[in-house]
């Protein structure tokens, strides 16, 4: 699977030096990368450090992204390689590989603190159960998007409804989930 239409625009903008596009990309993929890196390293601190390093590397290396894979796959591969380097260096006692903080460095948004912003494990069940209570139309559109990775066009075709309806149903699902999260005070910070 190659890069999606939406990510392609982000990538082109980042390649053109658009910092806002880079920030949006970080905001979008940081939770997924953090979660994957925690799974890989079994250490939240290490994952957090690797996450920051990964996005710096992404900013530096974005020109080498050819779009053969999904954007997140490429980002995750960078993260894993950095983790392996860290792991290898900690064993060989060599000096730790660090990213050069050259002029290309771009700050990862500071307010993002994975420690406080990842959803607590005990709250995950609550959210998943809440999603089950969404009405069928909203839940189906949301599920086809988030789990199946379908485009709005494809969802509109499957559900036989206008694309605008798909867009509003997916937004409605997210809005309701966010309201639930806020009500339950699930995300700190």
């Amino acid at each position, binding site marked *: 699977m190659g890069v*999606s*239409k*939406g*990510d*392609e*625009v*982000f990538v082109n*903008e980042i390649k053109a030096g*658009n910092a*806002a*596009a880079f*920030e*949006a990309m970080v*905001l*979008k*993929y*940081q*939770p*997924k990368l953090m*979660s994957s890196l925690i799974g890989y390293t079994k250490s939240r601190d290490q994952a957090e450090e690797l996450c920051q390093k990964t996005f710096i590397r992404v900013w530096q290396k974005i020109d080498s992204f050819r779009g053969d894979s999904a954007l997140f796959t490429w980002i995750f591969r960078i993260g894993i390689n950095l983790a392996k380097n860290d792991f290898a260096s900690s064993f060989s006692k060599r000096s730790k590989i660090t990213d050069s903080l050259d002029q290309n460095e771009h700050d990862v*948004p500071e*307010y*993002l603190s994975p420690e406080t*912003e*990842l*959803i607590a494990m005990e709250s*995950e*069940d609550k*959210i*998943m159960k809440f*999603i*089950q*209570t969404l*009405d*069928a*139309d909203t*839940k*189906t559109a949301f*599920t*086809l*998007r*988030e*789990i*199946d990775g379908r*485009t*709005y066009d494809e969802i509109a075709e*499957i*559900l*036989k*409804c206008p694309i605008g309806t798909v*867009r*509003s149903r*997916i*937004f409605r699902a*997210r*809005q309701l*989930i*966010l309201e639930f*999260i806020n009500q339950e005070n699930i*995300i700190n910070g």
Partner: protein
Amino acid sequence: MDKDLEKLSALYDGELSYKEIQEGLDKMREDQGLKETFHKFGLISELVQRQTKQNTSKLLFFKDYLIKVNPVMSNLFTAAATVLITLIILYQFDDDRFQVDRESSLQLSSAISSDEAKSQLLDADQNIMEHMSSLQLSSAISSDEAKSQLLDADQNIMEHMIHIMQSNASHSSQQISKNWIPVGFSVNPTNPNQYSNGRNNLFFHLENKQLGIKKVKYFKANNNWIYLIPLQDGKLLTAYGDIPPSVANPMIQSIYQRN
């Protein structure tokens, strides 16, 4: 404000035009609240996708484990998983059926044969999984005969569920006895198989064969319940709806007393 957030949601999905993306990024640059919301969309995605993968992995891991421990149990698990998939799909479509004026645009037949069927599995209610696993496994350990019977019964049940859900035609020809209808429920004039008390909905389906079911079985799919009730005349009554066992029990007793 909602329009802005709807656009932000579409931006998150990469479903805006180039111009709209530029506008969205500009707005986000100036508005910390929009950034935080965008990030929360990411948190929700991560959670939903990870939970989905975990549920799938649990099923696959459990099957691998069973293959090593006991091939019969493994077959049983396969059957249970198949029923589970069907039930999940059933649950998905039941939701549509309970909304009388909502178009049920996802057809079960295509869902079963398509990739969407897999994604429905990902939407599985943990309760169903646990319920099905415990139901199948606890029954399974009793005897080999019980295992093979259960396996046959499960496959039959699965086919039965598919048959019911594929059958979109009105079943007005079915002989649903008025005596079976719980007190307070009345028939929906537009659908003779739907009964409602204004709050809960109940559907009936009558089949001429009992599919190896000797006593009442029931399954829970989120807020919906499916009751398989073998009748004395050799028919199988399927009652499904958001009717908990506390309501269904008197109905089932009444059916047996009057059948």
